[in-house]
């Protein structure tokens, strides 16, 4: 579709747009699936039927109509479980990323702009925090707080706020030395006002890119914790628990493993690509 005679700038423009629209479409599809799960899912995600166990997906011999992506070892519909799994994945990723982002970015902004004691205390805290191995940290936290989605979200926020704090601190420091900050101060703006209305809009694209990345990470962390049975009860359909179950049946029912795995992969990839795309779109200089 790309015309070779098109000027180079136009063509690059298109490619960049595709890199924005494809992940966005995928995420929107997931959101839609998550919101309308009861309407879309062809079956009850929890309903077991031992007569229908390990049905192959629709394009293989022996597929049952209506079970598009086959069934697992307990006869549960894989597609329906994935659709309901999207609910949990998106819920966790949005709540976890937003709380991580607000907490970490606030500390980063304060450390980067106020400097002095603020910076010393916050930077030291980040250093100490990052000395813990993250996965061990997460497992430990969930073990202490008990399994469940709240623990998963808290674990993500408690581990990953340092990413926001570090990146946003550095960006804030760069912005704080810009002349427009001096202009605002000469115009009588208080320090806090300057931080919120002059500097924050300039670091916002980075915050949003990090948020997207964090959503991807949250999806993975949730899957890992489900995989090791530390998320919600293993009956509930999460992509991680499906992957864990599918792993045991890989030789006779590979689809139980593969479809959730691909979905997970695409989702994480989409979030990080989308983050970069949004960062560019938000920047008035880059986007013009």
């Amino acid at each position, binding site marked *: 579709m790309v015309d070779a005679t098109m000027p180079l700038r136009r063509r690059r423009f298109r490619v960049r747009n595709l890199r924005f629209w494809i992940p966005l479409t995928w995420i929107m599809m997931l959101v839609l699936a998550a919101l309308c799960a009861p309407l879309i899912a062809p079956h009850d995600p929890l309903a077991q039927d031992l007569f229908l166990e390990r049905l192959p997906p629709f394009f293989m011999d022996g597929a049952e109509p209506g079970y598009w992506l086959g069934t697992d070892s307990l006869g549960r519909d894989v597609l329906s479980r994935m659709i309901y799994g999207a609910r949990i994945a998106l819920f966790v990723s949005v709540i976890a990323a937003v709380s991580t982002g607000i907490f970490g970015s606030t500390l980063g902004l304060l450390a980067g702009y106020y400097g002095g004691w603020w910076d010393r205390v916050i930077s030291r805290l980040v250093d100490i925090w990052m000395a813990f191995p993250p996965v061990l940290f997460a497992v430990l936290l969930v073990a202490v707080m008990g399994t469940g989605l709240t623990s998963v979200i808290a674990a993500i926020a408690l581990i990953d706020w340092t990413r926001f704090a570090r990146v946003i601190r550095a960006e804030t420091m760069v912005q704080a030395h810009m*002349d*427009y900050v001096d202009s605002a*101060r*000469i*115009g*009588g*703006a208080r320090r806090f006002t300057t931080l919120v209305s002059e500097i924050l809009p300039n670091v916002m694209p980075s915050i949003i890119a990090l948020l997207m990345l964090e959503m991807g990470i949250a999806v993975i962390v949730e899957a890992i914790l489900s995989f090791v049975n530390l998320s919600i009860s293993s009956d509930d359909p999460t992509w991680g628990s499906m992957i864990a179950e599918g792993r045991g049946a890989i030789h006779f029912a590979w689809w139980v493993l593969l479809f959730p795995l691909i979905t997970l992969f695409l989702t994480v990839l989409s979030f990080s690509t989308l983050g970069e795309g949004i960062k560019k779109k938000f920047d*008035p*200089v880059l986007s013009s």
Partner: protein
Amino acid sequence: MTTQPHENTLEIRQLNATLPNGMRLLRDVSLTLEPGEVRALVGESGAGKSMIGRAVLGILPSAVVHSSGDILLEGQSLNAMRPKTRRSIVAKMSALIPQDPLTALNPVRKIGPQITDPLVRIHRWSRDRALKRALELLERVHIRNPERVMNSYPHELSGGMRQRILIAAAFAPSPRLIVADEPTTALDVTVQKQILKLIRELQRETGTAVLFVTHDMGVVAKISQKVTVLFAGRVLEDAPTEAIFNDAAHLYTRGLIAATPTPNATAEPFRPVPQDLIAQLQRDTQAEDVRFYQGGRK
């Protein structure tokens, strides 16, 4: 509060600024600026010209640890004020025309609020009044489509346009004092002349006192009534502009004037400030030698 008619708009007394490593950026700098006066601040790069402007406006870099001396705006000592009061007094009475019109505007905010914010915040004007004033000033600095410009982002405008906008923003609150820190250095030559003319016109119309930082002795001759010559953070010479050009007291000042290309300079070769003079001044500065003054005198 009554102000005397002859009160100085700006008075800097014995200002000192030092870095943590002991390096002195400003050494006992004193100068005054009468109402409506333009004082040029000249000196080579690193002499501390911008530091003086920053000290007045209260935006010294955080690295500058020690700063003694006092600054008075219309007789009010800034040192005696609490930081909050100081900030609002400075904001009410002074403004900056910066060197680099690219970085002095916030890239992600529209032009309009960047001009009107201080008017609303400090002068407590209504949004409407601030908006009207901004449009009026933009027209005054020859911006053709003020409404559209107010709705633009900085990157959509040329360097000359941005500098006009910053001039408009500086004059909008009718300040008593404007610090112009090399306002034409970042622009190309044809635009430089227009910008300079604009600042001079507006300065005359409004009677604002201007502290005009520049390297260019040609600009000094055109715009200022008084000149302060700065070397390594110390005032070498402080005199009326005419006196400086006709009969400068200090050899360094004479060197600066001689080093300025003039329209008929094609006849004579370019003469930079003599290296041995600069070396001598640097030695004297290092040694905190009082001969610093005498040594350079004619």
